[in-house]
């Protein structure tokens, strides 16, 4: 296995103690820690060129605008979009998906239209569509998944029809780690003229993204799950779609002219970015992608998968542990339950040992119901995790077993 110990200097929090123990931060799917270069870049923006963008004639404003637009180009390159204007900055993946559901959705959905979402979707890719469907008389239907967490592609191929208008799928499952076959899903969606929206919240930091090769129509992202700051996300959309869509929110910068008799809108991406954007956050997002690319996505994945594999192997040898999500294509996420001990109790006991995991439904209630569990314990790995983190996790679970013996 490759070593990444020297990295820890870039993550001050990972050296802190929690409840008297070395912190084993295994809640990376909730949010990753941010490396110092990203924090320092944001601080630099605030300290040396803090200004509003686009609207200013003065030097600071121009510098801020340049930094902001450079970050847009970085995101576009990272996901292989054909041009920066196809990247809209938002406050997070959730807003990105809501933008599509409300702007594209309300303009295009008609009574009887179908929105197909995988049964495993995060609430962020279910609820916005339910809200839009309710307004338009469209219907939301789940695409079946297997117990392993894998999508039932055959079922999807039988579900798609001329009624299908949207197919929604997450790139990577936050609860189980499954990597979904995006290219195939896009192909099936397009075969009936539907759009395909991919929830990339868990994909960006762990899997290569190529929106053009896949032909995906929308790809939604969060910076904070990709070593970047909180409060920033992005939406990739194909130019032709974005251009055809009405604005989502109204305000400054998204307009060309405003009068009480009528208003005309700006071009993309500005049409979808009203108001003062989060300049340091967006620049921090760009810095995080640079940092990740410099580390190397394949290296990161190798580290994460290795640790997750070890954890899975050791956990499954413990009595009563059931691993949840056993797809063949997975990122470094290990979800499990323990016979007769509620995940929440496991979480508290692990916390008391310095092990930070997530327990609960992971914002995937329909998936939990599909798996017939109220909740799971999830350990999710990032490129800075260490073998000691796995050891602490295993020791913690053994302690749970002792307490509840």
């Amino acid at each position: 296995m490759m070593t990444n110990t020297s990295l820890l200097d870039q993550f001050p929090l990972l050296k802190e103690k929690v409840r008297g123990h070395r912190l084993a931060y295994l809640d990376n799917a909730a949010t990753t820690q941010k490396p110092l270069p990203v924090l320092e870049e944001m601080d630099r923006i605030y300290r040396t060129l803090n200004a509003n963008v686009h609207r200013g004639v003065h030097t600071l404003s121009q510098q801020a605008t340049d930094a902001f637009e450079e970050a847009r180009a970085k995101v576009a390159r990272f996901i292989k979009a054909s041009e920066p204007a196809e990247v809209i900055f938002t406050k997070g993946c959730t807003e990105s998906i809501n933008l599509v559901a409300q702007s594209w959705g309300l303009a295009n959905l008609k009574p009887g239209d179908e929105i197909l979402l995988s049964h495993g979707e995060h609430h962020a890719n279910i609820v916005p569509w339910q809200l839009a469907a309710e307004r338009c008389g469209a219907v939301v239907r789940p695409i079946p998944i297997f117990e392993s967490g894998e999508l039932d592609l055959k079922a999807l191929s039988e579900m798609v029809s001329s009624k299908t208008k949207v197919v929604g799928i997450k790139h990577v499952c936050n609860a189980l780690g499954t990597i979904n076959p995006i290219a195939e899903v896009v192909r099936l969606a397009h075969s009936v003229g539907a759009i395909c929206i991919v929830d990339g919240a868990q994909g960006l930091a762990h899997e290569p993204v190529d929106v053009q090769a896949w032909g995906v129509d929308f790809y939604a992202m969060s910076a904070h799950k990709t070593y970047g700051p909180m409060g920033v996300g992005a939406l990739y959309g194909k130019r032709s779609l974005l251009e055809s869509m009405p604005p989502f929110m109204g305000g400054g910068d998204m307009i060309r002219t405003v009068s009480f008799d009528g208003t005309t809108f700006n071009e993309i991406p500005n049409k979808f970015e009203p108001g003062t954007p989060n300049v340091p956050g967006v620049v921090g997002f760009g810095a995080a992608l640079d940092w990740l690319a410099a580390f190397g996505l394949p290296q990161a994945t190798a580290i994460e998968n290795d640790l997750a594999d070890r954890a899975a192997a050791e956990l499954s040898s413990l009595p009563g542990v059931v691993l949840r999500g056993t797809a063949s294509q997975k990122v470094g996420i290990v979800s499990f339950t323990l016979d007769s001990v509620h995940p929440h109790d496991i979480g508290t006991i692990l916390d008391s040992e310095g092990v930070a995991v997530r327990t609960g439904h992971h914002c995937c209630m329909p998936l939990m119901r599909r798996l017939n569990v109220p909740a799971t314990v999830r350990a999710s790995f990032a490129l800075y995790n260490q073998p000691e983190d796995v050891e602490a996790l295993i020791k913690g679970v053994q302690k749970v077993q002792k307490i509840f013996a």
Partner: protein
Amino acid sequence: MLNELYQETILDHGRKPRNFGLLPMVTHCAEGHNPLCGDQIRVHLLIEDDTIQDISFEGCGCAISLASASLMSSAIKGKKVGEALGLFERFHATVTNASDEELGIGDLDCLIGVRDHANRIKCATLAWHALKVAVQSPVTQSQELP
């Protein structure tokens, strides 16, 4: 710190909750729900003469919420409604650190350890919240047999 929370009494009530199940006769009932861990607790009451003559609960949840429901049911059975609600107030104040008072009622004190786990206070008070709603929610005949 942790040992204080997962004590034998709690583990025992969590494993073998008292007053679990349905009641032959119910006058009041309500459900509490903690979306964080998916706990769901339904409290059934038989209130006569302003007194909780009988109580039971159903549901699923973590050890803390089940133990708390079990401990609550044992502590308030036979008490006046007002007394039971007063007890909730004191219990709430204690687990949220608003008060240092020991409760000295049944085994309720063994839940004090939840203080150091702010995110578990909802678990420890879920059944109590359901109780509070239940005493104001008389059931009609049709609701009794759903």
